Every structure is written in structure tokens, then in C-alpha cells.
């Protein structure tokens, strides 16, 4: 017989958990006492519970494993909501354990009591309020299973304090057997055959690669498919890295800030095969104009995704990797000739190369900084925050592998990047971990710099500092007649260099190319977490841009094209 708190530790050990991110408190004391006594996995004390959730999320994205966070009841739990919602929006496997007041106090408005499962319900894949010690082992087992299987997502377990204190028998189930939860992995063979015939007839087929290709580890299968069939592919922000950056069939990112070629390919294709993507409005633009000429094949493990926004002609529920391999089997004898389609796409590319910007020697351009980082450290693990810098990284960093980019795609959560980078640093020991943030975002969870220092983890943080809430400023420039309502941060900034130093980081402020390159090399040499505050051109916009609600072929394009994104 062991206590509930000990059961939690035992379960984490049996699940192969290496690290948990958390913050203690009254209702969590029994759990924390047990954490103190064990050596099976590491607990990382974050400085804010939102950080715990984002760190678990970053860890999960980079490692492909389930991220784990533990927090106390009431405010400890409520602080994690943004992090849970962020993981939910991007289907990231996570188990969040929150302490709750004792069962006898639930419903009495006790100190630090909140209806935690009630609050997390709309943004978790599943949740549990544990009422008895007998059910705790099963609940823990199911939580990990649900988090990582099917369409992954966050699972929340709320555990009252008395349950962590009382003892019970610990028999950890070896398997999960739930009558109500059985994800479908294998695609329907008849639908796959139908799609195969359509593919062999198509003149302008196109793959549309989403985050599901990364969470299902399908990159290998997709690369094989592309190599054999020569079907070109566009990807979403979440799908970056599934195909190598310079794979000749990679048309790069599509959507609101996608390339001209990718968006035209979507608009002109006659068969669009969506792989683990969900037709987000940032991709489709005006839906009535989206891929108007195409038959739509929609492959997703989550049946609710299919036909939700765009009606699918070939709905296929299943694991992307499994379905695409089956599809390849069906067409592998066929000789594809897509040369006409490719020459159309090449023409688009020569018109407006993806991606391009006008460089300058007077003032640093964010695109140049990102390009330079990609040159010096092509295999870095990238984290971004949310804003213009995020889109520039998506456009200009050369991603060659899945799980190299951690970014808040679905929810667009500012404050994500420093804690997520902490999680990535734990997943990718001794690799370069590079965080790009805006000056606005960087302040939102800056306290986690302290955690990085405390844990002796190294992240190189690059603030692309335009002294604006840049992405909002861009919309104000273009659609609100330059009324910069509450977005101007000039003269109201902290001294990031000093601030970073106070957290024990190395820091630099740079204004020129030479200064940047020098500082970046210094950072690579340093054992510490570093911050480079990069003063960039204030009014740079992210282009191309599709105005919200417009058709994706209606792009605002860069005016002058001097520097092409170099190979």
C-alpha cells in the first residue's frame, strides 16, 4: 500500500517521464514531498505556472513524448490555462496534474478552491477529477494513453489533497481498455483506392501538409511519396520541416503570409490532398474561393476535422503516415508526368520568389538576421513567439527536419517562447536552442530566464526589436490608416541587456550586421543562456500578406525584389 502522492511518482516513472515542470503550493504539498524523495525523474521549478505548461509543451514538441506539468490548486491551476489551451490548439500531448482541495472541502469555496475541471473542459482532450484512491492508477494510465494516442492533446488530472495522502494498492494497468475510446489508424481501403484513381487522373495535384504529419511522425512516408510521385506540396506553419527546405517539390508555406507560388498552387490545383491539416482560416482565406477548382481529399486521424470547413470529396479517417503509404502502394506502378504543372509553378516562382525582401546595410532587417542564423547554425532547434518575427522565421529559416520548430500556431500565444525554449532545452540536451521573440512577446514570460539560469540550460534568445507590437502595427498601417493605437513601445522599453544580465544571462544589444555576427558567435561559445537585443528596422512588414477574409490569391506582394532568399 502506498500513498496517492507516491502513486503519481510511480506512474510517471513507469511512463518513462524524464522531466516534469511545476510549482508547489498548499494542496500539492504531499506530491512535492514525494517528489523530494525520488530520483527517477527531474522536477524543474518554473517561475510562473504558465511557464510550466509551455515548458511541458515545448518539451513534447521537440521530443515527441508526453510533456508533464504539476501545479497546485486555485491560482496555480488557473495560471496554466493559457498553456493548456495552447497545447490543445496544436494537438500537443501533455499531462497536467493539478492539486485540488480535499474532497470534504470541494464545493465549499474553500481557500484556493476552484472548479478546475470545469475551467479546463473546453481546452483539454479529456479530464479527470479523482474521487477515490482506487481509481488513481487507472486514471494516470489512461491520461498518458489518451494524451499521446489518436489526435494527441492535453489531458488534465485534478487530484484532491486527501487522495494524495491516503494509501491504496498500486497496481498500474499494463494496458488501457476503454470501451469508449478507440482511435482509427488504418484508412478505409476503398476510399484510398478511390483517391488513388483520382490522383492518377489529376493534372495538377497538390499535397497540403499540416501539423498532423509531425505529430504522427509521418515525414519519412511523405518524403517517399513525394519522391516517387513528384506531387508538389505546400505546408502550414505547423507542417514546416516535414519536407526538406530545398526539396524540389516543396513549395513552402501557404496562407496569410505564405508564398505567392504556394498560394497560387492552392488556388489552381485540381486535386488537393490535405494531410493532417485542418483548413485554418489563416490558410484558406475566403473559403468560397479556396481551392475552387480542386477535388478535396482530407486525411486526418480526427473525424471532426474532416469537412468541417471545406467539404471533402475523399474523406479518409486514419493516421497520415499509414494512409499515405497505402496510397503510394496503390499508385507506385503508375508513371506520373506532372511537368506541365511544375512549369506553371516555376513561372509563379520566377514572378515572386518565395520569399524575398529588400536588404539594407544601414539598418538591420529581421529577415537578414534569421537567414544569418540559418547559415551559421542550420541544425538549431527553433522556438518562436508570436508576431511578425514568427512569420519571418517561418518564411526565412530553412527547416529540414520535423520537430525543429516549436511555435504557437493554433492559439498564437504571446509569451510562449521562453518557457517553451526551456522545455526544448531539456528535450535536446547539448544542441543549439534558438528562440526568436519580439520585444513585446519577450516580456510576457521573461521570468523563465531565471529558470534557465537556475537549471544551467542554454538558450540563445534573439529579440527582433522593432519597438512596436509589430504584427498589430502592421495591420494598423495597412487597414487603420496608421493610427498606432497602443502598439508603440519606443522609449518605453526596459534595458533588455541589463534585464537579461540580472537573470544571470549573457547579453548584447546590436545594431549592425557585424555586431550581430560577433554577438551570435559569442553566444554560441558561452555556456549560459544569452539574449541578443537586435535593433531592427521599425516599419518592416511581413509580406506577402492576404488581408483577413480575402481570397488567398489576392496577396499584397513585396514591391521591390532585390535580395532573393539565397540557397
Amino acid at each position, binding site marked *: 500500500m502506498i500513498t496517492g502522492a507516491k502513486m503519481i511518482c510511480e506512474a510517471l516513472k513507469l511512463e518513462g517521464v524524464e522531466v516534469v515542470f511545476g510549482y508547489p503550493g498548499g494542496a500539492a504539498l504531499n506530491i512535492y514531498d514525494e517528489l523530494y524523495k525520488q530520483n527517477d525523474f527531474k522536477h524543474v521549478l518554473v517561475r510562473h505556472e504558465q511557464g510550466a505548461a509551455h515548458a511541458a509543451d515545448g518539451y513534447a514538441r521537440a521530443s515527441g513524448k508526453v510533456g508533464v506539468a504539476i501545479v497546485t490548486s486555485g491560482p496555480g491551476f488557473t495560471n496554466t490555462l493559457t498553456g493548456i489551451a495552447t497545447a490543445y490548439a496544436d494537438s500537443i500531448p501533455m499531462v497536467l496534474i493539478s492539486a485540488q482541495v480535499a474532497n470534504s472541502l470541494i464545493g465549499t469555496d474553500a481557500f484556493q478552491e476552484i472548479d478546475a*475541471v*470545469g475551467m479546463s*473542459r*473546453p481546452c483539454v*482532450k*479529456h*479530464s479527470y*477529477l479523482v*474521487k477515490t484512491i482506487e481509481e488513481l492508477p487507472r486514471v494516470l494510465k489512461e491520461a498518458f494513453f*489518451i494524451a499521446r494516442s489518436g489526435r494527441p492533446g492535453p489531458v488534465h488530472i485534478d487530484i484532491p489533497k486527501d487522495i494524495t495522502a491516503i494509501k491504496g494498492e498500486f497496481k498500474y494497468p499494463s494496458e488501457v481498455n*476503454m*470501451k*469508449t*475510446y478507440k482511435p482509427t489508424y488504418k484508412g478505409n481501403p476503398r476510399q484510398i483506392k478511390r483517391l488513388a484513381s483520382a490522383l492518377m487522373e489529376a493534372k495538377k495535384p497538390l499535397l497540403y501538409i499540416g501539423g498532423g504529419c509531425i505529430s504522427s511522425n509521418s515525414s519519412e512516408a511523405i518524403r517517399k511519396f513525394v519522391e516517387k510521385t513528384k506531387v508538389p506540396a505546400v505546408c502550414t506553419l505547423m507542417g514546416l520541416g516535414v519536407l526538406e527546405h530545398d526539396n524540389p517539390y516543396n513549395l513552402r508555406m501557404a496562407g496569410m503570409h505564405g508564398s505567392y507560388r504556394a498560394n497560387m498552387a492552392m488556388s489552381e490545383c485540381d486535386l488537393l490532398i490535405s494531410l493532417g491539416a485542418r483548413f485554418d482560416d489563416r490558410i484558406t482565406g475566403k473559403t468560397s474561393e479556396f481551392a475552387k477548382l480542386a477535388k478535396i481529399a482530407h486525411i486526418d486521424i*480526427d*473525424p*471532426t476535422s474532416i*469537412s*468541417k470547413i471545406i467539404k471533402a470529396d475523399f474523406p479518409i479517417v486514419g493516421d497520415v503516415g499509414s494512409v499515405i503509404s497505402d496510397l503510394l502502394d496503390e499508385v507506385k506502378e503508375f508513371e506520373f508526368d506532372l511537368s506541365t504543372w511544375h512549369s506553371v509553378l516555376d513561372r509563379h516562382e520566377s514572378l515572386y520568389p518565395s520569399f524575398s525582401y529588400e536588404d539594407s546595410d544601414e539598418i538591420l532587417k529581421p529577415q537578414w538576421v534569421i537567414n544569418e542564423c540559418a547559415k551559421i547554425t542550420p541544425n538549431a532547434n527553433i522556438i518562436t513567439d508570436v508576431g511578425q518575427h514568427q512569420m519571418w522565421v517561418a518564411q526565412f529559416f530553412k527547416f529540414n527536419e520535423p520537430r525543429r520548430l516549436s511555435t504557437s500556431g493554433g492559439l498564437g500565444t504571446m509569451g510562449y517562447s521562453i518557457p517553451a525554449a526551456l522545455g526544448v532545452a531539456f528535450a535536446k540536451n547539448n544542441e543549439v536552442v534558438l528562440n526568436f521573440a519580439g520585444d513585446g512577446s519577450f516580456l510576457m514570460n521573461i521570468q523563465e530566464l531565471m529558470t534557465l539560469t537556475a537549471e544551467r540550460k542554454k538558450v540563445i534568445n534573439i529579440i527582433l526589436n522593432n519597438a512596436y507590437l509589430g504584427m498589430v502595427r502592421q495591420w494598423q498601417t495597412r487597414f487603420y490608416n496608421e493610427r498606432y493605437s497602443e502598439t508603440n513601445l519606443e522609449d518605453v522599453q526596459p534595458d533588455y541587456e541589463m534585464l537579461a544580465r540580472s537573470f544571470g544571462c549573457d547579453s548584447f544589444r546590436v545594431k549592425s550586421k557585424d555586431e550581430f555576427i560577433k554577438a551570435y558567435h559569442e553566444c554560441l561559445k558561452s555556456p549560459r543562456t544569452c539574449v541578443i537585443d537586435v535593433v531592427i528596422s521599425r516599419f518592416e512588414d511581413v509580406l506577402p500578406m492576404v488581408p483577413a477574409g480575402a481570397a488567398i490569391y489576392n496577396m499584397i506582394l513585396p514591391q521591390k525584389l532585390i535580395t532573393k532568399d539565397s540557397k
Partner: protein
Amino acid sequence: MRRALSVIVENQHGVLSRVVGLFSGRGYNIDSLTVAPIAGTEFSRINIITSGDEAVFEQITKQLHKLISTYKVFEDCEFVERECVLVKINIDQNLAGLDSLLKGYNGTIAHSNDEYMTICVNDTSDRVDNFLKTIKKYNPKDCARSGVVLMEN
């Protein structure tokens, strides 16, 4: 358009609010809702009457399927449908014709005392609507509807 749904779920705390949350989260109305455990199983049956357009309804049913606690969703099938209504009327008034009305609707007197009589009718929702229209002339003091119970046939 009126929609009937019957959802078989695990009989556990929190499940009902998850189901209902799918409707409220989309600003979708629930016209009637009934829930009870299914005897001899670990499941409960939740019956929902709602109205709305095809696309939203399809999403709701898919989302219901997606809930980890959902075992089965019956929708758009042939249902046997019953709803119970209790009506309380003052016995001081002229009750002529009430007898035959009750007979027509398979109604019974569920309870009476020296002031009030409570009658009960068990029928499809449409017929319960009609019954309630007719019974108006007896100036009902109060009335309680159960919500619809469904079973696929």
C-alpha cells in the same frame, strides 16, 4: 429544423457537462434534455432535442463522438419518442369534457386533493404540445414537462 439525438455515455461525474458544453460552446440551443443511467450497465443515456442547420448539427454529432466518454451517438434515426407532462388544475371550476380529453390523450389523474387535481399525459412532444393548448381552457395552475425520452427502433 428540429433534431433528436440520443447519446450513450459512461456514467461518470462531469460527463453531462462535457456533452452540454459542446452545445453552449457553439452557441447552440438545447430545447430539451433528459438523462438517466441505463440499468445494469456502466452507461447513461442522454437525450437531446435541438434545432439548427445541417453543418452545425454535423459538427455537434462528430464532436459528441469525439468525446472520450462517449460510447455511441444515435442521430437522425427512427426513434420511439415519449414525453411526460404534469398539469395541475383547480377543481373548483367547470371540468366538463376533461374526462374525454384525458381519454383522447391516454392521460391519467396522477394526484388530487381538495383543491387541485394533477393530471399526467405521456405522448410524443407534438401531441403534448397539442394537449397543453387544449387544456388551457381549464386554466392550469402549473405544468411540468419532462423533456423527451428517446429510443432508436
